């Protein structure tokens, strides 16, 4: 339960909201439930119990000084503490970045899509907190049959203030029929104070549209980042996500795919490399609501130091979703004897004509392989690095953009090499 101090602060905010409004209701839900603790099944290994006792600066002002240098990007947008700026505008009229209100005015037909959405929000009080406190959605709107050949860069940044702070940010992405775009997201932070970053993204991918979403999560120690990415896919659409979790005190990714049409393809790729005093938790949901769709999930983890990893992969195949193909694989290497990995695949299948498979493994580096490499003159740290790098390469190689592939590889090598476990 929330501490008295925090409760008073949030009640104060609630009084300024209309209790019947979306925000008012959401905050009242949050006040009832508080932050998740390990007693909540969905948060068993990722308790946020301590957050119930921390009053924060709930509305920090964005102030960012990130340099802009990505000539590969068509458009660069930045959310600094939830405040949006366009850093590099695009002359392409096929897309727009605007506020939710402006968007609904220009695209009233979206109202119906918006009110019909059915996300799975069990045990997710942080979604309520986000709805209650976040400023308006930023909307990225890609219009019918528009193909954006260069990627869009989103710099998501949270900045520490004197006091503990919390950033609530919302992004809405709407791809109209036949649109095609890639979004590259760099999630970073400044300062070293304690920050709760709570980011909600709702993505609507219309008929035949194609969307690629890469997240590079590289925060400073002290940041707890809760990421909710809910993707709604219509008939014949394809979505590929790449979630690279590199640094933060805590990362919880709630990645949900709602398959709402046939001939949909959903590819979920993830790689997490938590180190000393870091926890990384991937909770994915693939909800097959319609027939003839395919989902492929490949998650890998390398755990260093005393890191904790969590993978929970849910696949629902609803009664109507005949001829579904759903595959899930999660493989982990404990590079340290002090690291822990918790995995839980969960398949719920109500349709009878489907193909589903899943597999999770957690192990250590092969001692025989290490000796073999050492007997050829490769030192133990170098042998471990080489094996770990080969292990993560499978996920990195799926990234099409060579510049990103390279920078991710470099960051991961650096992180692995810094780890003291390598020479023990």
């Amino acid at each position: 339960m929330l501490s008295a101090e925090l409760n008073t602060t949030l009640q104060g905010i609630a009084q300024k909201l209309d209790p019947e409004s979306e925000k008012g209701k959401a905050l009242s839900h949050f006040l009832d439930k508080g932050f998740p603790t390990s007693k909540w099944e969905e948060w068993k290994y990722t308790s946020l119990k301590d957050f119930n006792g921390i009053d924060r600066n709930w509305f920090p002002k964005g102030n960012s000084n990130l340099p802009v240098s990505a000539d590969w990007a068509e458009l660069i947008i930045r959310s600094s503490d939830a405040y949006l700026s366009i850093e590099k505008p695009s002359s392409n009229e096929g897309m727009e970045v605007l506020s939710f209100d402006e968007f609904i005015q220009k695209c009233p037909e979206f109202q119906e899509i918006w009110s019909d959405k059915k996300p799975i929000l069990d045990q997710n009080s942080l979604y309520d907190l986000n709805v209650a406190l976040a400023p308006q959605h930023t909307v990225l709107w890609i219009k019918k049959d528009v193909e954006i050949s260069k990627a869009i860069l989103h710099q998501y940044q949270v900045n520490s203030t004197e006091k503990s702070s919390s950033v609530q940010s919302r992004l809405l992405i709407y791809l109209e029929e036949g649109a095609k775009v890639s979004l590259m997201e760099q999630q970073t932070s400044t300062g070293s104070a304690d920050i709760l970053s709570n980011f909600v993204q709702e993505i609507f991918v219309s008929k035949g549209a194609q969307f690629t979403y890469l997240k590079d999560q590289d925060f400073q120690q002290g940041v707890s980042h809760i990421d909710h990415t809910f993707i709604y896919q219509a008939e014949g659409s394809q979505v590929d996500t790449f979630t690279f979790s590199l640094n933060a005190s805590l990362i919880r990714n709630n990645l949900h795919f709602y398959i709402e049409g046939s001939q949909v393809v959903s590819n979920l790729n993830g790689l997490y490399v938590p180190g000393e005093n870091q926890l990384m938790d991937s909770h994915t949901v693939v909800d097959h609501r319609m027939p003839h769709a395919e989902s492929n999930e490949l998650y890998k983890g390398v755990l260093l130091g005393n890191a904790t990893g969590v993978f929970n992969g849910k696949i629902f195949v609803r009664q109507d979703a005949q001829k579904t193909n759903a595959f899930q694989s999660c493989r982990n290497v404990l590079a340290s004897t002090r690291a822990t990995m918790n995995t839980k695949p969960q398949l719920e299948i109500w349709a009878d004509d489907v193909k589903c498979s899943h597999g999770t493994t957690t192990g250590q580096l092969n001692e025989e392989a290490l000796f073999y490499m050492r007997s050829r003159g490769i030192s133990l740290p170098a042998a471990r690095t080489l094996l770990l790098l080969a292990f993560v390469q499978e996920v990195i190689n799926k990234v099409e953009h060579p510049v990103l592939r390279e920078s991710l590889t470099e960051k991961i090598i650096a992180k692995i090499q810094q780890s003291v476990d390598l020479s023990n």
Partner: protein
Amino acid sequence: MLSIKNLHASIGEKEILRGIDLEVKAGEVHAIMGPNGSGKSTLASVLAGREDYEVTEGTVQFLGKDLLDLAPEARAAEGIFLAFQYPVEIPGVSTTNFLKSAVNEIRKYRGEDPMDAVQFLKMFKEKMAYVNIDQSLLSRALNEGFSGGEKKRNEIFQMAVLDPKLAILDETDSGLDIDALRIVAEGVNKLKSPNNATIVVTHYQRLLDYIVPDYVHVLYKGRIVKSGTKELALELEERGYDWIKSEVDQ
């Protein structure tokens, strides 16, 4: 070059080597033979530095250094090479990348500058010819899905690249058909020089038709119980190991 004195080694509670003495000089080829379980592979593993074995007594000098004091990678850098009986699969790492790391780590150990891509290309080409190995095999993940012959040929290719002073071939003939055996043996013979030495560990005599030893030693119950020249190997082929066993066990 190599001087083993009264070497004892155990795994867990079990003593496997019980006092080995062996002298190997540059330019020599020594064959270590013996029945199953006599300690042949253990000797090879202990020399390469496998940590599963504990050396309880004795010394091993290699080119004036205390070999037992060195980590496996340092032994490799000093010039020891073990061709594995069962080469290990290294998923995701190609032979070329593996060898580039190995060569440059060894050069670093010796205080030499790393080799660049062009130099590697030239050297790999040269060494490929030695063992008649195909480029496509070198680009694949090391040993992953290789046939028995491909694995052994790859071992000899690695040996050619690393150019060791002392090569230890651990049952290199196991799992090889006669053609593969000949190719592997030819590779080993080409790499032989007055400056390096070879220890061939084998159960059967047939490999010694191709790699002719200067000395043959019979290992039994963790000791060298008989030494001789290549004629000893022929005698073993004809008479088996039983006569030696009964000589020793008396």
